[in-house]
């Protein structure tokens, strides 16, 4: 039949006032080279903008890259905005400079995984590939 395998769509977003996009771009490139379709929205995205992009693009995965230290403020708002749009099935992962002490709280918010500095790209890509929700179902 047509396509038995389809590319996974991932949104890579940089929330808040944070101009450090090297990590996000490197990951965007790595996911692209791994066969993902990567939607990159650029810098300075508000939680509402990220959730709206995830909604319209119907991505299976949102990757948040943050190096500003504002993750404990922004992440809960992003999760709330996703929830408000009915996007609870989207896999959300985070990367960047996130202190060890904050991790339990972030994971409790519903963010599935945190990839800090030094994580291999293969680790992140394999994780996402394994945990992405199946977008072929029609549920609503």
């Amino acid at each position, binding site marked *: 039949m*047509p396509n*038995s395998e389809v590319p996974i769509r991932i949104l890579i977003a940089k929330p808040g006032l944070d101009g450090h996009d090297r990590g996000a771009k490197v990951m965007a490139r790595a996911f692209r080279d791994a066969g993902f379709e990567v939607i990159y929205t650029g810098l300075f995205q508000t939680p509402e903008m990220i959730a*709206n992009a995830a909604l319209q*693009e*119907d991505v299976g995965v949102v990757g948040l890259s943050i190096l500003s230290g504002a993750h404990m403020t922004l992440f809960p708002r992003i999760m709330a905005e996703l929830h408000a749009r009915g996007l609870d099935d989207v896999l959300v992962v985070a990367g960047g400079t996130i202190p060890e002490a904050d991790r339990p709280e972030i994971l409790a918010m519903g963010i599935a995984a945190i990839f800090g500095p030094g994580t291999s790209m293969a680790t992140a890509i394999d994780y996402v590939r394994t945990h992405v929700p199946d977008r072929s179902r*029609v549920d609503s």
Partner: protein
Amino acid sequence: MFQTDLVSIPDSLIGQVVGGDQRAIARLATHIENDSISRDQIVAELFAFGGRAHVVGVTGPPGAGKSSLLAGLAKVVSARGQRIAIVAIDPSSPKSGGATLGDRIRMSESALDPNVFVRSLASRDRNDGLAPAAADLTLLFDAAGYDYVAIETVGSGQDQLEVADLVHTTVLVQIPGAGDSVQLLKAGAMEIADIYVVNKSDLPGAQRVSRDIRSMLGLVPDPDGIWQPPIVLTSVDDPTGFEKLADAMERHFAFLIARDLLEDRKRRMARSELKRAVDRRVRIGSGSTIDELIDQLVSRSTTPERAAQRFLAELVQDDTER
């Protein structure tokens, strides 16, 4: 990667799309794009609701500012109380099959505008500036009641004209400093535009590009008669250019209606859709028959024309048995 399953589309989802529900639109867009079994059913259900939107194609070389232009246009359209959907296409990697879809970067200002829906598409297995799902997503947004559907092609050069077969109005974006007037004399994309845009018009040389386009157009009689493609200068610094572009689009659509040319365009679009559907059928049918026919061709026991005839005959037979 995962398998696409046999799924059936609930009627309520089509109803939500027609009602403009963004999540329903986005979900159906995914099913269409992934070519799941339900795609045919979705298209069939949406077809009755289509045919109202003004469909616009925006094409031009990479870096000409197509995304920024559409962002500016979206603001104008929305301010006028109309809704616009943008289907933004970027290339897929021939190596990995992946893609970087970056058109939203330029459209941040409209990210929260309820009148604007942006959907990024990878070109996947097409190399004509479009994506396999471009036409069907146009139908989807049309059925969802968007006043405009804009298709932004992959940055393309001189001969990727397929977009013109999917739209009512083709907008070609040029920029200053990208070659002399001989480039404008060349055949191909320069001939098919209904509206010419000189973007980045704050840069030196914009007026000259505009003059060169005008003199080039003066040399070519318009096949439909009467329509003089306007040349619109735009720059992200100056919203009046986007106003003029929106006006020019409206004038062109009114012209098509007034001259009874809308039917011609619709026929051209329908022809292209039919051809695409046939192509798709043929692709679906490929497999062991193709391999067998290739073997026969290599051993010279048949000709390409005869092999094609047999292939199509078997395709028809398969379809009737199904």
